[in-house]
């Protein structure tokens, strides 16, 4: 009973936060003298108005969900990693390289190898930060931030260098990934681009929830986050765990990059996923570090991102409005955390009194 009352309240507060985001967005539109109603309907049409739009929402949500899972996994281990942007790009690059190198193998193999390559690539990019933390005491926030810039430059370098991934002379980009290396379309023959990455993202979210909450390694990760001193007393090596946690976290970011490259873009271009890393972290933040709540949260942000495309075309509102709405939702989530804690406490007190 207590649980359900709390669930209703926290859902109400979350919905209030989302509404706040749209109100701020509406105000910004109104100040510019643009039609608020038409902007909202353009946003909705772009995210849910057609087969294509829904597919677009879902594929964007998948990328955000994978990033969010990575962020949450690191958070549970006590590490604030804001390196998804770099891990996503490096992971997608490695995934593309792996899929391209094995392109002649029978059909699902190149895609599988590509995903593995992406996980390992992103994982290594994350593990560097874990290693620097473990061995050299470098704050993970800072190292992951710097690795973001380095990762983006690395991608630009790899697709500009003939001996690496560059294809042709026209523009710096990789070769196109053949059919064998792509993630399956779930609805072939329709305009929807929804692909296997969407299912993978949800599976990974559930798996991460299970690992964290129901297994021994997951318990170790959480212990590391809650009380590192105690963790090391009972024999969890804080140093090697930091590296491993960051590997998994980065790997999930790498999969997000693969979902973009192997699922929809099919070739690596400079800065192909800029913004997805930070938006994915934002999803994790409004989900309050709960992997399962990240599923609906990623849908919401995916829908806003997808809808943003139509804003400019239909009502000449800059799609920078997307950042305003997303940012306001995050601020509302941050600002209501105390309110949420208080209501849960009040409810608990009341029920205790009634019992």
């Amino acid at each position, binding site marked *: 009973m207590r649980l359900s009352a709390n669930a209703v309240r926290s859902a109400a507060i979350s919905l209030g936060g989302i509404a706040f985001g749209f109100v701020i967005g509406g105000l910004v539109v109104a100040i510019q003298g643009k039609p608020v109603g038409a902007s909202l309907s353009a946003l909705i049409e772009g995210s849910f108005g057609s087969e294509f739009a829904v597919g677009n929402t879902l594929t964007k949500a998948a990328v955000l969900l994978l990033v969010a899972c990575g962020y949450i996994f690191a958070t549970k281990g006590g590490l604030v990693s804001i390196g998804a942007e770099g891990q996503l790009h490096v992971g997608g690059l490695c995934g593309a390289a792996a899929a391209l190198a094995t392109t002649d193998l029978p059909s699902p193999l190149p895609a599988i190898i590509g995903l593995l390559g992406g996980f390992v690539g992103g994982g290594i990019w994350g593990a560097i930060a874990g290693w620097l933390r473990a061995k*050299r005491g470098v704050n993970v926030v800072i190292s992951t931030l710097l690795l973001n810039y380095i990762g983006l430059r690395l991608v630009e370098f790899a697709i500009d260098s003939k001996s690496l991934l560059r294809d042709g002379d026209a523009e710096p980009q990789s070769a196109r990934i053949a059919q064998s290396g792509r993630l399956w379309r779930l609805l072939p023959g329709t305009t929807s681009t929804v692909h296997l990455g969407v299912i993978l993202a949800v599976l990974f979210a559930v798996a991460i929830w299970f690992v964290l909450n129901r297994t021994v390694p997951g318990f170790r990760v959480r212990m590391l986050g809650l009380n590192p001193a105690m963790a090391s007393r009972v024999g969890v090596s804080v140093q090697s765990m930091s590296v491993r946690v960051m590997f998994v976290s980065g790997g999930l970011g790498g999969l997000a990059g693969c979902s973009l490259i192997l699922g929809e873009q099919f070739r690596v271009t400079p800065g192909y996923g800029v913004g997805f890393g930070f938006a994915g972290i934002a999803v994790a933040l409004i989900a309050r570090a709960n992997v399962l709540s990240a599923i609906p949260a990623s849908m919401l942000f995916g829908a806003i991102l997808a809808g943003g495309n139509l804003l400019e075309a239909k009502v000449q509102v800059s799609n*920078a409005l997307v*950042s305003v709405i997303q940012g306001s939702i995050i601020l509302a989530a941050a600002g209501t955390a105390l309110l949420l804690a208080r209501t849960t406490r009040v409810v608990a007190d009341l029920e205790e009194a009634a019992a």
Partner: protein
Amino acid sequence: MNAFMIHPFVLAAFDASAVNLSKLGGQALRLGVLIAFVALGETVSQRAGVINIGIEGVFLSSACAAAVAAYLGWGVWGGFAAAMVCGMAVMALIALLVLVLKADQIVTGFGVNLVTLGITTIVVKSVPELNSVDGLTIKRPFGRGGWLPDLFTQKVSVFLIVPVAAVLWFVLMRTTWGLRVKSVGEAPAAADAAGLSVNRVRFQAMLLCGLLAGMGGAALSLGQAPGFTENMVSGRGFIALVAVIFGRWKPVQVVLGCLFFGLFEALSLQASAWGVDLPSQLVNAVPYVACLLALSIFLKGSTPPAAMAKPFERKR
């Protein structure tokens, strides 16, 4: 040429005759100082126990405010004032969230960065004239091409860092208020028991942070560039965050950390002019790699303020 021994790649293939040390130093100073104002602001905030990831957004919005004020004809110093007010206003919003509502500081920072990015982009898209505000950039006290080398023919905003850093060092290290700031960052419960209002001191520190970041914003859009462009800060606020840790939360060292980054940024910008035959993308990554290496080599043994990122609540 000793200065370049630290960079073996550069040493391997470059045209020594094209190297202009004065130009390099000038550029390093310009780029470093830009970040230094912001990093000093962040230093005050972190010393008070507030990690302000939103500094990127404060920097960006105040750069935009400076350009808007200049566009409205308030002049250069009007632009500076507008930027400082804007920086303080955004910091006051952050303070409302993290001090009063006890919001998570990192979440709040992220939100602020997104909102300010969105709003400033919309502003500059509706007023494209902000891209280049004519004749309103900051002057150089010593003209170029005279007897002074490039290193010293900087704009006023660059020289400004010297008094600002000196005053900030004095305030933080030698005054009662500075001691209060440090005490609410290290031991808020003790400060509270001694009769200080923890949140009031933190609020003051955050306003000062906004003021300093605002100076950085004005120096960027009126000094470094002739106006405001979309997302023109592009991560420099985050670099300021790095510089604070690199400088171990001490004002003078933080400024030196910024100059260190500026030097590597200048090196990477000038590399091609020196005939360095390396892929440009890798050269562009050099400042960040240098930062990471420097952090991992020199950081051991430095500890952040103890109450960092923890909201203060009086125990009952």
